[in-house]
């Protein structure tokens, strides 16, 4: 079991050893840097392709129909057919569009989505770069996606795109603040920004989610991650029934494929980060570490797809209310509960920090009671 756990590490060591026998030293260093990069570049897009298939089949089953099942057995070759379609479509650029902004936006959106794969620990000793500002790097790079979404919206010279772009920017900057603040309790407890050390601070089954502040922090962080990826129920920027397709209306063919791929890569990396910070990363009892990581990440991704099939979209003012008036104060209360948990001793700290969290949550629900949607009464004719 230990060999299976470290199979990728041994594979990389074998390749570097093989290269070192007939290549000069500096080339061996460059090859050992390139191996994780090539691994991520192969793993990323292939997983994204099959995530699109899983999403379509899951949504179809929720909606009481079959998904794609004609192209290959169980629809397994559907992503390849989609790829061929997107590559061969005509690339339509509107006449009045801003050529530079329209051309650069899809390319620039994929860059942050790929860069953040570097700090996610896929398993024991399996992280591309162990930066000592790992989580801060992730948060900073994923904050740059906002400006490129606005570039895409502005460059299209289309009122629907601009509306979608503005909504997306407002949503992303509003949800960034609870996103960062709900990661702060983890930094308080572990004293480091590095993702590898955060996972090592949660040994065995002592994950952070089983503590009161960890549970609330996990919920806030996960909801803000869903909002950052522009997924339902926060997908107003690309709402198909309201503003055609939002900021990627005027993009066809390969450019749309790049937007789609960037969105799914964001879903994977945000789920990976939630797993790293709160759900114990690759820690787990029997199975190899990277299998635990993949299981936990895929459970969260399936929950995001389940949200997409079940919840209606929230309105823009409900969305902003939720971020500023509920999640932000709750994440500040969470930081207080974390401090209390850290300094008291064994059963007392759970009780008191749980009490602080429950009181804060109830107070905020009471204060926001008028913004909750009213209970619907369905009458059948």
């Amino acid at each position, binding site marked *: 079991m230990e060999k299976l756990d470290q199979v990728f590490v041994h594979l990389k060591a074998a390749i570097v050893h093989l290269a070192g026998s007939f290549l000069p030293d500096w080339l061996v260093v460059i090859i050992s840097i390139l191996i994780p990069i090539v691994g991520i570049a192969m793993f990323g897009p292939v997983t994204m392709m099959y995530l699109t298939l899983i999403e379509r089949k899951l949504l179809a089953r929720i909606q009481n129909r079959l998904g794609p099942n004609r192209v290959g057995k169980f629809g397994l070759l559907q992503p390849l057919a989609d790829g061929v379609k997107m590559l061969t479509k005509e690339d339509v650029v509107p006449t009045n569009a801003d050529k530079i902004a329209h051309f650069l936006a899809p390319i620039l959106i994929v860059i942050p989505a790929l860069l953040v794969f570097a700090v996610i620990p896929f398993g024991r000793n399996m992280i591309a770069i162990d930066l000592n500002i790992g989580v801060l790097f992730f948060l900073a790079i994923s904050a740059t996606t*906002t400006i490129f979404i606005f570039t895409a919206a502005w460059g299209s010279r289309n009122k629907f795109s601009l509306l979608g772009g503005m909504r997306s920017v407002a949503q992303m900057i509003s949800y960034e603040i609870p996103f960062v603040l709900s990661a702060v309790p983890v930094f308080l407890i572990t004293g480091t920004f590095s993702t590898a050390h955060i996972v090592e601070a949660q040994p065995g089954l002592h994950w952070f989610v089983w503590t009161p502040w960890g549970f609330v922090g996990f919920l806030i962080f996960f909801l803000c991650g869903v909002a950052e990826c522009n997924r339902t129920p926060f997908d107003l920027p690309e709402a198909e029934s309201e503003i055609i397709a939002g900021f990627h209306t005027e993009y066809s063919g390969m450019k749309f494929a790049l937007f789609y791929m960037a969105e799914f890569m964001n879903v994977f990396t945000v789920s990976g980060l939630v797993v790293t910070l709160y759900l114990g990363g690759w820690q787990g009892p029997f199975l190899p570490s990277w299998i635990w990581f993949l299981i936990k990440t895929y459970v969260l991704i399936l929950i995001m797809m389940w949200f997409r099939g079940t919840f209606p979209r929230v309105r823009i003012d409900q969305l902003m209310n939720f971020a500023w008036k509920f999640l932000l104060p709750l994440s500040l209360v969470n930081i207080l509960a974390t401090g209390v948990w850290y300094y008291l001793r064994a059963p007392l700290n759970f009780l008191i920090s749980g009490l602080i969290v429950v009181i804060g949550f109830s107070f905020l629900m009471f204060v926001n009671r008028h913004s909750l949607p009213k209970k619907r009464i369905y009458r059948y004719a």
Partner: protein
Amino acid sequence: MDVLTLIAKFGIYFIFAFTLSAALLSVTVQNIFHAALGLAFALMGVAGVFFVLHADFLGAIQILLYVGAIMILLIFAVMLTSHIGDASVHTSNRQVYPAMILSLLLVYLLVRQIGKVTWQLKETLTSIDAVEIGKQLMGPYVLPFEIISVVLVVALIGTIVIARSDS
């Protein structure tokens, strides 16, 4: 010379060239939205320079605050104050040549002076990590830290008051 050091130096000078060309682009193009994009790239180049100088906490803060927040503000202001069909208006005034002469004169004088200074260099280059910056901010530098939070609140209130519509 060691090949890896050569590649590293080439990378560092490439970051310098990228930042300077993005900055040049942002001060000379006509379309103001392209100038804002040029500034975003120049700021990312500056963050790259911070990473080269082993100030990684500051590089991450630069990207998070500048590219993630201040650029959004700038682009919103560009969007709110522009007419869509305005791309052909000349956005440089009549002082282009005197300003160019002044900038080149400033560069020449400063570079000549920099060459004459003997810096008191350290033997081994040091760097400091985020935990140490946090301890310093909560220790000797706690007063500027608290004052700047007051300044932020004041600026926030002032911005809302200035930009509010008169209704």
